[in-house]
């Protein structure tokens, strides 16, 4: 009965029938209480987003896997302290963190949320060393500003590490040889599991050695009877990524390990954990089935189809023992991986698994081909690592705001990889940070169209990812209609995503309805407390409403979540500028510049703050820097001219403005300032000319009034001037 229930539960989990799975698992647990079954029930709860239930049932369990799941539930419930204790029970000696790389990654996140930056960096680095394919850990390191070069992380060392695990797997396969890599997609998933279980090199090496030299087979493992030369079988208790697999047959492969969920934890941290457990007592029918398959396979020696499952399509590749076929088949499989636009981890897992499977088949059908396998294995690993290297580099550059470098790096990717939404989104973000809103707009529109060619469902995913940026871009380009349309589209697709409400808020903000915009941003915050940008946008709206205390509070909250969010520093600086606290303002702009040293806008404001604090030389230097930093930005020259005019250096100011006038002929403030300067230089004709032009260029009403006042006073001698307005 137990096996039946177990199989049912696993099947239900794989087919997303969570409530059914929970029910069955509860019966199972009631009848056969054991820690394993408890873990299974916890998995069911977590899949159904009931972290609190998982928390209660796992409280106090000691097994590593249970501790990992318990820590995960605590993390979901925001009980960071308990989660940490679960993962690291004692501080005196460092026990093995359950879950391997995934455990370290979870710990890193916990530390990050708690604000312990150095510990979190350490944990993420551990995670990466254990599993080089733990991309998210690298991403977190980038956003913390502590990432090393991608080439060191995804380097030969990691390649060796991956190789070892693959090789070990392979060797044990040859000895155990229950592997049925042929038919099912679960096969591939199983293998994926296998690779990942061996992530912690130290322990896994030991494990493997033991297994290689003589496994200690628990008496209840079942044996492959057909295999004469290989009599040892390992039970497999590993999770498999149910994410993209459709598993109809129970996975026949059992591999015993320490019940570490390994890299699957990666995805689990993102709330998508669907781990499968295969119990030790697999039914005999399964053994027979796989035995049957094996015999079929032996018969079909040289023509072994391999299923590549990507959830949607399966392809069959014929494998021949010849080396030349391996590399293309591998690369084509990897190529298939690339098309999938979900997390790289999944795809690379699968590629490795598929590679593993074909490697294993080769091993099986061609006992002399071990060197060929090694080669194909190595080349496969290096391809994946190269890909991750490029992406890692680009990501790191982007988060250090070296946008130009990031763009160059991303150009190195192949067409297929470049056209995935993740990469395009990064590219769009790079353009956005460069203030190149037109290009950003085109990239984001490309993504938008790109996905509407695919399935409508993926639109929503893409929209959430880039909607906040797209809405900001559109706001900057002042495209009300498009922004409104985007906002409506988003609301109809998903009301529960904070990005949706950010887009709507940007709509209102564009129309200057700041109070409603504020409400929208607050909704976004309610949906996700840790959405830094929503806090910053709230701050911007408060500042626009001139409620500077609230604005400051919002900016500080954003900074408490993420100190590297330079927009919040910028916002604080602007607030202090409005409040005329120029020294404070200057400090904030300095902080912002430390994070994003190439932003000419921030440099401009820093210069203004310096000028107002009477540090005029520094101000002028800062303006020079700004001019050089971004040649397309006309404002530093304008501000420079303004500062010079205030200092009395009218000739220099005039020169700068004359240049600027040619670059930006439609800007009324340039002409107005020129008029003022000519007035000071007593060149009244030119002054009148420029004031007239300024008026023609549609200034705001208060400016228009000012300019007219200036014109009038040109006629009147200077002594009669009594302007506070000026």
């Amino acid at each position, binding site marked *: 009965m137990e096996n039946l229930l177990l199989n049912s539960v696993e099947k239900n989990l794989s087919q997303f029938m969570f409530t059914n799975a929970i029910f069955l698992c509860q019966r199972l647990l009631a009848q056969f209480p054991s820690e394993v079954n408890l873990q299974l029930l916890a998995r069911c709860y977590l899949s159904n987003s009931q972290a609190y239930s998982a928390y209660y049932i796992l409280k106090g369990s000691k097994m590593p896997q249970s501790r990992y799941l318990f820590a995960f539930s605590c993390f979901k419930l925001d009980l960071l302290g308990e989660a940490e204790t679960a993962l690291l029970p004692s501080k005196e000696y460092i026990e093995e963190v359950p879950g391997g790389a995934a455990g370290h990654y979870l710990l890193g996140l916990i530390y990050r949320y708690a604000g312990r930056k150095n510990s979190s960096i350490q944990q993420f680095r551990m995670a990466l060393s254990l599993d080089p394919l733990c991309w998210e850990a690298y991403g977190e390191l980038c956003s913390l500003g502590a990432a090393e070069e991608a080439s060191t992380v995804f380097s030969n060392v990691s390649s060796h590490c991956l190789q070892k695990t693959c090789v070990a797997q392979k060797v044990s396969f040859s000895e155990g040889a229950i592997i049925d890599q042929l038919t099912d997609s679960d096969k591939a998933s199983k293998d994926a599991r296998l690779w990942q279980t061996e992530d912690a090199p130290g322990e896994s090496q030991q494990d493997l050695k033991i297994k290689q030299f003589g496994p200690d087979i628990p008496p209840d493992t079942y044996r492959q009877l057909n295999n004469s030369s290989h009599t040892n079988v390992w039970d497999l208790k590993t999770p498999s990524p149910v994410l993209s697999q459709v598993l109809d047959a129970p996975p026949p492969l059992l591999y015993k390990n320490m019940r570490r969920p390994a890299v699957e934890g990666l995805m689990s941290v993102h709330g998508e954990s669907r781990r499968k457990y295969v119990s030790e007592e697999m039914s005999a029918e399964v053994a027979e089935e796989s035995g049957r398959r094996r015999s079929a396979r032996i018969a079909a020696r040289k023509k072994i189809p391999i299923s590549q499952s990507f959830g949607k399509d399966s392809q069959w590749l014929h494998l021949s023992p010849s080396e030349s076929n391996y590399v293309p088949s591998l690369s084509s499989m990897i190529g298939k991986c690339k098309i999938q636009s979900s997390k790289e981890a999944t795809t690379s897992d699968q590629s490795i698994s598929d590679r593993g499977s074909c490697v294993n088949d080769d091993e099986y059908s061609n006992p002399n081909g071990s060197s060929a396998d090694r080669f194909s294995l190595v080349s496969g690993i290096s391809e994946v690592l190269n890909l991750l290297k490029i992406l890692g580099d680009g990501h790191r550059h982007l988060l250090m705001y070296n946008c130009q470098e990031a763009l160059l790096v991303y150009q190195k990717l192949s067409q297929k990889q470049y056209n995935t939404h993740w990469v395009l989104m990064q590219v769009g973000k790079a353009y956005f940070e460069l203030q190149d809103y037109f290009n950003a707009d085109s990239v984001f529109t490309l993504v938008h169209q790109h996905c509407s060619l695919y399935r409508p469902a993926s639109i929503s995913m893409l929209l959430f990812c880039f909607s906040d940026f797209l809405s900001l871009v559109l706001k900057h380009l002042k495209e009300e209609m498009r922004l409104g349309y985007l906002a409506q589209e988003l609301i109809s697709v998903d009301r529960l995503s904070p990005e949706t409400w950010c887009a709507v808020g940007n709509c209102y903000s564009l129309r200057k309805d700041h109070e409603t915009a504020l409400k929208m941003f607050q909704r976004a915050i309610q949906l996700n407390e840790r959405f830094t940008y929503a806090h910053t946008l709230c701050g911007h709206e408060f500042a626009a409403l001139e409620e500077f205390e609230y604005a400051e509070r919002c900016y500080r909250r954003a900074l408490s979540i993420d100190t590297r969010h330079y927009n919040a520093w910028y916002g604080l600086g602007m607030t202090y*500028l409005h409040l005329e606290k120029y020294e404070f303002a200057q400090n904030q702009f300095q902080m912002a510049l430390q994070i994003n040293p190439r*932003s000419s806008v921030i440099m401009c404001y820093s210069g*203004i703050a310096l000028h107002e604090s009477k540090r005029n030389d520094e101000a002028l230097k800062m303006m020079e820097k700004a001019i050089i930093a971004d040649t397309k*930005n006309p404002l530093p020259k304008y501000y420079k001219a303004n500062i010079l005019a205030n200092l009395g250096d009218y000739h220099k100011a005039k020169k700068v403005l004359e240049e600027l006038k040619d670059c930006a002929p439609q800007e009324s403030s340039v002409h107005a300032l020129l008029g003022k300067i000519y007035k000071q230089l007593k060149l009244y004709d030119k002054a009148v000319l420029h004031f007239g032009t300024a008026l023609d260029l549609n200034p*705001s009403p208060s400016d228009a009034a000012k300019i*007219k006042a200036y014109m009038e006073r040109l006629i009147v001698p200077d002594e009669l001037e009594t302007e506070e307005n000026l």
Partner: protein
Amino acid sequence: MATESSESEEEGKIRGGNDKLNIDDDLREMGKNAAWSVSSCKPGNGVATLRDDNLETYWQSDGLQPHLINIQFQKKVKLQLVFVYVDFKLDESYTPSRISIRAGDGFHNLKEIKSVELVKPTGWVCLSLSGTDPRETFVNTFMLQIAILSNHLNGRDTHIRQIKVYGPRPNPIPRQPFQFTSAEFLTYSTLR
């Protein structure tokens, strides 16, 4: 007392205040930063009703004419428009008829800047503070006083349902002499 074009039959827009706001993007309501007071009021119909965004509630005076509404700012502000919501159909003899607007530094040096006569108004009445001179689009002042000199049908006390005061938006970039107009300048002027 200059009798300007008596704003006769001022067709009020029910939500006219907001409509006007949309037309002129560069105006914003200034009343939030001011201290509001009245010369007299009936209990239950006090000064708060003038600012509660509710057209059902009204302020009712309780003394001798002229009835005064004082709006005092903490620093000199530029003001351009005053909107008053009155309704002859509902208030009849309580509806103000002659309104005078005064400005100055304080109670001691108020000077009249505008005077109007209303004839059976129903809705938002716009009182522009600009002078004829284009240089004088705005009034730069510490204090504004709205005086109700007389009512329709010689009523003694007056009802006013809502008052809004508008001035220009400040330059979003602090400490700059002029605002930017072209798209290029504006894109580079802020970060989000």
